[in-house]
């Protein structure tokens, strides 16, 4: 499959009050055309920072990105800001979590989409408006022509997110990064939006990076998943394998923390301890202080290991058998 986006050893350093800290370390992932890949992690895992770094949306004076982010071969990290700006919204787009605040409240939604089109192409306003109506209909907004004249506050959360998706996809980008796009939405609306993303990705061949903390969303939408912890990718594999047979203790911990109806009223596994602060990361395995399977070797810095077509950042990956989403049959 044709690779649309490839991140290679991406690292991001941020300037904080305590000095420079590394928010993201050694992130590598690929997304193919038409594929939906998941990036799962909890708060502070660095998943959003990674996305913002790829898009060039981090504050310029306060961040430093190294490594490479190849969009059809062009390295986004190495591009000057003006050039990256012209790619944004056209070849690579991003949608965000809070549809309530992501749209400009004082402009009509149709005008905001027209603006996007005309920021990248020389077209007449009428042509842009026609395309706007089309794309609004594509994302399932009924009565697109009159809805285009609405202001954001006149639409529901689900509608606003559809508008965001329309705006992001109107210029047919190769890659869409979706950062927690459904977290703030009701569950029925979430299901509709995820269905929409899947359909659009299939119809237009858009590669999607879906960032979320919800493994259920990943399970139902993505083909592959990357688990992030403390700024690193700790596991990368197909979704089904990751759920059935996780190879990193953190992934397994996440899976076990999810309430399931068959575990009704039973105690859930809760990963002990907390994520270390960015300014005080362990030099070795970042998960080691909380890991039930830690050994002295784990104090050394962990690199990614290949396990078939899976990658795991754990020195014990080939020996551990960890609980997954489905109880293993007893041999």
């Amino acid at each position: 499959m044709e690779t649309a986006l490839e991140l290679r050893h991406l690292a991001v350093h941020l300037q904080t009050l305590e000095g420079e800290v590394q928010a993201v370390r050694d992130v590598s992932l690929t997304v193919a055309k038409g594929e939906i890949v998941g990036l799962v992690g909890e708060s502070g895992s660095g998943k959003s920072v990674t996305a913002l770094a790829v898009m060039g949306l981090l504050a310029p004076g306060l961040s430093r990105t190294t490594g490479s982010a190849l969009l059809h071969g062009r390295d986004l990290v190495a591009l000057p800001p003006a050039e990256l700006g012209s790619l944004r919204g056209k070849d690579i787009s991003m949608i965000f979590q809070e549809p309530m605040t992501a749209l400009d409240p004082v402009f009509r939604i149709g005008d905001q989409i027209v603006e996007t089109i005309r920021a990248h192409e020389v077209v007449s306003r009428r042509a842009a408006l026609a395309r706007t109506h089309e794309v609004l209909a594509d994302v399932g907004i009924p009565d697109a022509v009159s809805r285009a004249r609405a202001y954001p506050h006149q639409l529901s959360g689900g509608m606003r997110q559809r508008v965001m998706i329309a705006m992001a996809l109107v210029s047919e980008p190769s890659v869409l990064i979706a950062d927690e796009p459904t977290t703030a939405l009701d569950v029925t609306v979430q299901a509709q939006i995820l269905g929409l993303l899947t359909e659009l990705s299939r119809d237009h061949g858009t590669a999607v990076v879906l960032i979320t903390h919800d493994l259920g969303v990943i399970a139902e939408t993505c083909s592959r998943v990357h688990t992030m912890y403390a700024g690193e990718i700790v596991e990368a594999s197909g979704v089904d394998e990751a759920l059935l047979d996780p190879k990193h203790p953190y992934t397994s911990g996440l899976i076990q923390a999810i309430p399931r109806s068959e575990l009704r009223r039973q105690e859930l596994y809760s990963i002990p301890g907390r994520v270390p602060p960015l300014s005080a990361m362990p030099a070795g395995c970042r998960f080691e202080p909380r890991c039930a399977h830690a050994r002295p070797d784990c104090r050394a810095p962990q690199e990614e290991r290949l396990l078939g077509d899976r990658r795991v950042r754990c020195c014990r990956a080939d020996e551990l058998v960890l609980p997954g989403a489905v109880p293993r049959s007893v041999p």
Partner: protein
Amino acid sequence: MYRLVLSRLVTLVPTLLLATFGVFLLVHLAPGDPAVALAGENATQAQIDQVREQEGFDRPLLVQYVDWLSHAVRGDLGDSYNTHTSVVTAIRQTLPITLQLVAGALLVAVVVGIAAGVASARRAHTAADSVLASAASAGAAMPSFWLGLVLVSIFALQLGWLPATGYAGITTDPGLALRQLVLPSIALGVAGAAEIARQLRGAMIETLASDHVRTLRAKGLAERPIVWRHALKGSAVPLLTIVGLQVSRFLGATVVVEAVFGISGIGTLVVSAAQNRDYPVVEGVVVVMAVLVILTNFVVDVSYRLVDPRIR
């Protein structure tokens, strides 16, 4: 929209009544006897008493007010004690001049204020921002009359670039009028520019850090339309508020600036009337000023709705 305009108009009337009654009360409670003022300095006691009876100064204050009000709504603000010409005429001769000056000051304040505010916001927390912030503080601190005197002294007297005093009126001699307006407009408008710059800077910094601006950047929009089309419009509500406030301030500060530059506007009129105990003129001018301020607020109120669709 119409409901908004209507509801604001409805509150206009009681506000005006309250304002005019307040003025009437203040003027009449001030020390000094209107009868003496009207009769003149050399009048005898008998003449003074006669005037008092004729003019009805011995009636209760409320009755005098109602009498005055009943004339005022018909466009009759009485006659000046000094010149014995109608107050309305005097105002009609001087108000346009003041309004031209206020317009000039508003132009200075808005253009300089917005430019400085946007420039500060875009370079927030840098050295340039600090410089602009200090300039704004200095500008806000300068009294208009002091600034006026300084400007006259440098640009008119020493350099001779612009006229020092007087104002011909825009209809009489536009070229001269515009040159005559430059210094007074700056003197009056600088403090307004400083305030506008400060408020706009704060509002724009907040807007530029908001989620929807992040979306605009993600869309690939260049910085210039983000700042000038989106962030400015997003900050329009606080901006309009502060501009409205500045207009009200100008109407008051014009008194001083007119004095410095020898402009015969409504400020000059009211100052000399106050010194001469010319009550009808003072009342008339203050009423007109109150109406102008209320109208300004009304315009600002309505404009909010035009700029921000979320406001009902």
